[in-house]
């Protein structure tokens, strides 16, 4: 018999969306038994690394408007955002800033004690709410600490979820491995919220935590849900060399310059109106164009890069508002930004795509919601604006937490438990992976996979590269990497690492196929062989469904309410 535990509501993932959902659900249903399942200890999710800000309209007295936030988001998305969803984000967000404050968030303040905001890319008003340059970290702390007030929230620290159990239509539970003991469990539940974050470790040069692999995306995909718009991967303009750690957009929001090897602020050529604070897709393309045209630098590791200059901001401002990135620059790159220029390069930072949901975060399986980066409710379209992702996590954490709690209060657990599905999952992971054989080193295969993505599906893309990339990924997939050399039960991260790699193959393929199919340039997807946006043929979302041979690709309409697509200029 497989060990089994039970909750009313299961939240898989413990970043901002998961923790915000837990609090919303605990408030809605004080008697619900809520379990947060995380492959990490729950306060350690990648959300802690968000740096610069959380976008919200809280200064209407100073001229900001919800409509302006909506339009900036839609324009930033290159008109692929579902406009009703973008509006929901902007309408819901202001109260969340104040709610976080009531829960203890150490927002940076103005002299009069009100919450301060800073400039961020692509906005018509400085509406990135910040707490020094550790916004995600402090938000995580605030939410985790607030969770401590709710005795009906349990923490399943270091449980690796492997599959969603359902009857073809309705949610029944999860299967998971408790890493500490190595025990395989079924976790029965009435409702599930998937909040497992993005999968930026598909790329070798990445701002993401080493744990940000597509396990959650893949779990949904294997359960029959569509992945939507996976070809849109955000490359943040300023990943520091050599580590790829993020240098916040707030550095430019506070006045930092990007310089080429002529000493010019080259953004004047590409976005004279916004300069360094153009949206991320545009700044990243500009950097790569400068490099390709010979105006870049070589980092001492041999990698091409550009320079970020913060020196003119002065010691005091850097210390007060950008203390975190100063610490990172000194420690990991040996450079103090108050004295020297930083070596930066576009770096994988966010996935606009994810599990296909509606405006409420509901997925295609009854009783399952998805929130945060793992979800694609199409709020960001083909390019997300900075500071809108922490906002998204908080807003849809709350929405899905309340809806899933309500659902759990009005439904019962399944009476017929599908033992055969659990047995099949046990066979997939234990016979297929844990007891597998082979010569290929799964860690070297993972490195190769992420190198391919970096080389073939980066800022600028073309048919030849993408097709070659897909071929290479499939060759790697065919090698004998599905084995676990560590045979111990306890804390076997070799096992979870190989399961992570297994999920990476399925999701990497979908990124590449989506990118091959989309023969246009829109937002973060820039094709050198199809340089224009093509609203006639491609103003639609991409859907990908699981099939053992090859993903089944479909399209889905974009919701346009007020704003007809126009040419995007800054």
């Amino acid at each position: 018999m497989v060990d089994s535990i039970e909750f009313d509501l299961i939240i898989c993932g413990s970043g901002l969306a998961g923790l915000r959902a837990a609090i919303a659900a605990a408030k809605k249903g004080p008697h619900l038994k809520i379990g947060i399942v995380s492959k990490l200890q729950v306060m350690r999710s990648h959300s802690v690394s968000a740096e610069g800000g959380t976008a919200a309209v809280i200064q209407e007295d100073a001229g900001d408007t919800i409509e302006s936030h909506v339009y900036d988001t839609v324009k930033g998305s290159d008109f692929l955002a579902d406009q009703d969803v973008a509006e929901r984000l902007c309408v819901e967000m202001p109260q969340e800033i104040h709610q976080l404050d009531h829960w203890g968030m150490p927002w940076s303040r103005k002299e009069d004690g009100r919450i301060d905001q800073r400039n961020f890319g692509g906005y018509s008003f400085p509406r990135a709410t910040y707490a020094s340059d550790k916004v995600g970290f402090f938000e995580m702390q605030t939410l985790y600490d607030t969770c401590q007030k709710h005795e009906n929230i349990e923490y399943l620290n270091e449980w690796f979820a492997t599959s969603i159990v359902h009857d073809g239509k309705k949610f029944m539970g999860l299967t998971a491995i408790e890493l500490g003991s190595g025990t395989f469990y079924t976790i029965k539940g009435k409702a599930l919220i998937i909040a497992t974050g993005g999968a930026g470790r598909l790329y070798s040069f990445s701002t993401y935590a080493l744990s940000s692999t597509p396990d959650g995306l893949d779990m949904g995909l294997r359960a029959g849900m569509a992945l939507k718009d996976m070809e849109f991967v955000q490359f943040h303009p300023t990943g520091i060399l050599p580590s790829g750690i993020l240098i916040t957009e707030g550095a430019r929001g506070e006045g930092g310059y990007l310089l080429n090897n002529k000493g010019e602020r080259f953004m004047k050529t590409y976005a004279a109106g916004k300069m360094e604070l153009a949206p991320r897709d545009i700044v990243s393309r500009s950097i790569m164009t400068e490099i390709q045209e010979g105006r870049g630098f070589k980092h001492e590791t041999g990698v091409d890069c550009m320079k970020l200059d913060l020196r003119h901001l002065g010691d005091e401002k850097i210390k007060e508002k950008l203390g975190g990135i100063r610490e990172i620059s000194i420690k990991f790159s040996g450079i103090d930004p108050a004295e020297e220029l930083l070596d930066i390069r576009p770096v994988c930072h966010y996935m606009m795509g994810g599990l296909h949901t509606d405006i409420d975060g509901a997925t295609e399986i009854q009783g399952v919601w998805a929130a945060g980066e793992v979800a694609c409710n199409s709020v960001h379209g083909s390019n997300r604006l900075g500071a809108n992702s922490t906002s998204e996590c908080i807003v849809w954490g709350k929405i899905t937490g309340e809806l899933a709690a309500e659902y759990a209060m009005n439904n019962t657990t399944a009476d017929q438990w599908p033992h055969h599905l659990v047995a099949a999952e046990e066979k997939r992971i234990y016979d297929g992976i844990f007891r597998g054989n082979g010569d290929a080193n799964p860690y070297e295969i993972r490195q190769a996979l992420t190198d391919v993505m970096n080389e073939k599906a980066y800022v600028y893309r073309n048919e030849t590269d993408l097709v070659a990339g897909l071929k290479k990924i499939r060759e790697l997939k065919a090698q004998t990497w599905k084995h676990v050399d560590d045979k111990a039960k306890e804390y076997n991260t070799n096992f979870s690492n190989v399961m992570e790699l297994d999920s990476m193959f399925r999701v990497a393929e979908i990124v590449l196929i989506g990118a091959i199919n989309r023969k246009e340039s829109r937002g973060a997807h820039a094709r050198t062989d199809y340089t224009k946006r093509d609203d006639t043929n491609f103003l639609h979302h991409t859907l990908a469904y699981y099939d053992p041979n090859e993903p089944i690709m479909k399209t889905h309409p974009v919701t346009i309410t007020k704003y007809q697509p126009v040419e995007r200029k800054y």
Partner: protein
Amino acid sequence: MAQVSDVADNQPPQTKTLRIARFNPEKDNEKQFVEFSVPVEKWTTVLETILDVKQHHDHSVAVRYSCRQATCGSCGMIINGKPRLACFTKVSELDSDVVTVEPMNNFPIIRDLAVKFERLFDTHHKIKPYLDREDTELESDAKEFLQSPEELEKYIQFANCIKCGLCNSACPTMATDSSFVGPQALAQAYRYVADSRDKGKDSRLKIIDDSHGIWRCHFAGSCSQVCPKGVDPAMGIQLLRGYMLGFRS
């Protein structure tokens, strides 16, 4: 405009010895050190050397890690005798040809470098780490509670805690009193007591006013020395005692 050199001056990697303490309480009687030779460049971190071993020499090394930028708090361990974050310790700064990594002290070992955190999470929970006010205020639709930059400054240092456990690992009192609440939780008690938005000072002070609470600390100060985020738990504890003895209001 300062001149920027684009000349590559990369040095070839050196080789260092990494000694990893291996131990699985389910199988082994005692800790054993296993040595590996690892390549090291000027920015190589201790975590990178451990992962190099895990990826290329021995997949079974058990180690907890995630963000690799000193923010998630996963990779605390004893490095050359001192509690540190592996991702935030460059091999070059150790100034030694041998790097020895062991699990943190005062935490039960799960396996190798991975330790159990239940005690830390429980004590953190116990000190009520949240603003204590009427629910009608905390859950209202009102705008923010006003807080001046000066008021923020009073507690922000303590809010930098990443719950990595290094302070508890360094604390000599944690080693001798298994009921001691510990520097991590006490620093967080101070963080909320010092927050101008909080009204729960009395109830929080009551929780730690115990022989295994605030009075158990005898100011060795090692907690503050090892914190990778500049938190000063020893000072927090002193300030809390000030409140309790009526020196502060």
